[in-house]
């Protein structure tokens, strides 16, 4: 770009200086044969210089066909005005000296030279829309042809005149390479046709009608340039014809291609199932754009191996782009066009880059970042048109939307899976509920069972009456842990327990056998905490075993006192029955009418409030003491109420079971 800019400046200055020299010569030496060469040199230098200056100073995305055409038409109008002005002055000065007349006509010529030079520069840029080497070659070749014919014409006007049609024939490849016509055909076609028509008409007036009307004889430089000027008019006319033909043949082809690309992109993205897939499709789509040489797409904070994609071979470019992208905030939609990477590192090649970023709004943890970053590269320093930037912007935006949709879908699926798991847990819990309790004549009891968070805890209770009704067992157990594992342990314990009940064993023996059974099926680090209270209604005795469960409250109606029963015991399922036998000690006593027992699982005693304080055994005991004369259901209700008031808005934090049993006698 720097070379182009420098060359453009130098050549334009030479063109300007030679134009002034031409004026000087026409005034002081009107008949000098040198002046025509100076004029031709001025024209050639101005054309080439302005073309290079436009390349170096004006970014490609500002040199859109529409802008160039507008400038072209405006220039034509100014040129016509200029021609009329100086033609009129020439008429008025017809009686002046030869020198003055020569200067006035020279001013008209220089105006035409400048105008034609700018027209050629603009035309060159119209043709080089979507830069390709073949186009650069065609433009350069045509310029050389113009130069050669102008030179030959001034050496031998006959040969020059014979060769002049070559300038018109040479327009054919240029017309062929004018693919900008396809881009504009469905977009502002009428405006384009109008601008081209205005340009042709105005140029015809400025370079045809005005000189022949105002000037007696055509000035030498204008005469020399007439073939070139004619070529400029013919090219514009040719564009009008080609545009009309294209309009007839394929309406909206250029726009259709973009639309087709976008439609295909959207259709493919619909079926994307992973962020990687979405990014791959975007990468492939970007590659189909004419100027795109490579792309770098990454999701910030995601492992590069999985989600970054690139077909840019130069590691230095890739690293620079990655650095540039990582420097952006990513908190809001962002796009930047970089005309050259050399400003970031002088060793980097002169290329065009579009950086685009779009924040991603996460719903779930499916995406590990919050930004989609895209860098699109063209190997040409002027590779991207305004339309390309818009399209890349759209593709980035759509890619971000697809990533978000995928995240949303994933989130919905997670919700669905979570619901299924909850349903499964609920069904499992229902399947593990104890059988309906028996109706007992001599015993009143109430069970309050509270599930934690609708999942499966480890609590299990059951009331069992022997077939002859002489023995009633009250069972409360708590499996270690929670969830499915605890549920399985509970199921195993439940099955073993109900099998043992059929054998009508002594309570102690039943627990030993249960321990043996559980030790066989439990993992070594699992266990079951349990409480068994057995009423022997025939003997009017009770026997209590506590295997790792909390203490039991017992109200003795004879003395109206509450005892906290803590018989020695150990959890079941983890230790051999020989050891259990040494530790497990029964608590025995007489059953008296009104005898009241309270079992509770640690869900109640360890229920904590928001400050982390536990309800505790002491508070339970005081509530129990205050309600010993109430019915079991009233006692349970009072305890639950007190615990709820204590914990406030929080849940128990675990399964909670209360079992209140009163012997009626």
């Amino acid at each position, binding site marked *: 770009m720097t070379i182009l800019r420098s060359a453009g400046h130098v050549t334009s200055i030479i063109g300007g200086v030679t134009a002034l020299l031409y004026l000087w010569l026409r005034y002081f030496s009107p008949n000098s044969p040198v002046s025509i060469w100076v004029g031709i040199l001025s024209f050639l230098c101005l054309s080439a210089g302005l073309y290079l200056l436009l390349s170096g100073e004006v970014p490609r995305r500002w040199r859109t066909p529409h802008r160039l055409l507008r400038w072209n038409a405006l220039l034509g109008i100014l040129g016509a005005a200029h021609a009329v002005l100086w033609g009129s002055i020439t008429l008025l000065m017809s009686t002046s000296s030869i020198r003055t007349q020569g200067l006035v006509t020279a001013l008209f010529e220089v105006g035409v030279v400048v105008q034609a030079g700018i027209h050629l520069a603009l035309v060159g840029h119209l043709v080089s829309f979507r830069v390709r080497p073949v186009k650069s070659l065609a433009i350069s070749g045509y310029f050389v042809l113009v130069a050669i014919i102008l030179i030959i014409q001034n050496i031998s006007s006959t040969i020059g005149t014979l060769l002049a049609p070559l300038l018109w024939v040479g327009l054919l490849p240029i017309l062929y390479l004018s693919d900008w016509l396809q881009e504009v055909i469905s977009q502002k076609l009428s405006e384009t046709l109008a601008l081209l028509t205005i340009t042709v008409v105005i140029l015809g007036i400025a370079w045809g009608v005005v000189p022949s009307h105002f000037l007696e004889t055509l000035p030498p430089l204008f005469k020399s340039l007439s073939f070139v000027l004619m070529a400029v008019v013919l090219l514009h006319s040719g564009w009008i014809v080609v545009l009309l033909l294209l309009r007839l043949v394929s309406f909206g082809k250029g726009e259709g291609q973009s639309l087709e690309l976008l439609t295909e992109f959207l259709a493919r993205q619909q079926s994307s199932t992973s962020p990687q897939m979405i990014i791959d499709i975007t990468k492939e789509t970007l590659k189909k754009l004419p100027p795109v040489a490579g792309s770098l797409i990454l999701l910030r904070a995601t492992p590069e191996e999985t989600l970054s994609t690139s077909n840019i071979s130069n590691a230095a470019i890739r690293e620079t782009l990655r650095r540039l992208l990582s420097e952006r905030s990513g908190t809001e939609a962002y796009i930047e066009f970089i005309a050259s990477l050399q400003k970031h590192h002088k060793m980097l090649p002169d290329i065009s880059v579009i950086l685009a970023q779009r924040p991603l709004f996460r719903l779930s943890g499916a995406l590990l970042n919050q930004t989609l970053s895209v860098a699109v590269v063209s190997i040409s320093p002027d590779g991207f048109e305004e339309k390309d930037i818009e399209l890349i912007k759209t593709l980035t935006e759509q890619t971000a939307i697809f990533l978000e949709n995928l995240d949303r879908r994933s989130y919905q699926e997670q919700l669905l899976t979570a619901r299924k798991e909850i349903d499964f847990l609920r069904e499992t819990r229902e399947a593990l509920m104890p059988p309906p309790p028996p109706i007992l004549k001599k015993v009143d009891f109430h069970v309050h069972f509270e599930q934690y968070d609708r999942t499966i805890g480890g609590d299990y209770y059951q009331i069992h009456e022997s077939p002859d009704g002489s023995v009633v067992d009250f069972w409360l157990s708590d499996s270690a842990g929670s969830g499915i594992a605890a549920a399985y342990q509970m199921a195993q314990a439940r099955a073993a327990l109900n099998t043992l009940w059929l054998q009508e064993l002594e309570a102690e023996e039943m627990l030993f056998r249960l321990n043996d059974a559980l030790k066989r099926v439990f993992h070594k680090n699992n266990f079951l905490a349990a409480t068994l209270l057995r009423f022997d209604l025939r003997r009017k005795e009770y026997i209590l075993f506590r295997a790792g469960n*909390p203490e039991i409250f017992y109200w003795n109606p004879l003395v109206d006192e509450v005892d906290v029963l803590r018989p020695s015991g150990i959890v079941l399922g*983890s*230790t051999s029955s020989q050891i259990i036998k040494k530790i497990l000690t029964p608590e025995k006593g007489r059953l008296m009418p009104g005898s009241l027992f309270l079992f509770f699982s640690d869900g109640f005693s360890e229920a904590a409030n928001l400050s982390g304080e536990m309800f505790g055994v002491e508070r339970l005991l005081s509530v129990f003491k205050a309600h010993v004369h109430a019915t079991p259901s009233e006692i349970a209700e009072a305890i639950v109420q007190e615990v709820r008031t204590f914990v406030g808005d929080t849940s128990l934090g675990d399964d909670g079971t209360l079992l209140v049993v009163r012997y009626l006698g």
Partner: protein
Amino acid sequence: MQVEVLSGTTDTNLQVALTGELDALTAPKLYENLNRLLQEHPNTRKIILNCRGLTYLSSAGAGILLMSIDNLAPKGISLELKDVTPEVYNILDLLGLTKLMPVNHV
């Protein structure tokens, strides 16, 4: 939870300090560490776990202690808990573990 060998360790007595919480997440780590330490101290006859820094014991943690007792006993190695905090002691006592091994509380 951190497991650290104490300076009082002898050829037959392995003294280990437990710090932090012994729950479902950390319990396997304790078991692995004990196994590793026993490989490093093959003549160990008694493992003394200093529980002064042990702030919480869950049922899974108690399960690991039970499993350790069960696995160590056939090898002639006993397990002992020392300087147990009252909170942890209450849990051990409730579950009956204080009857399976010596537990000394603070």
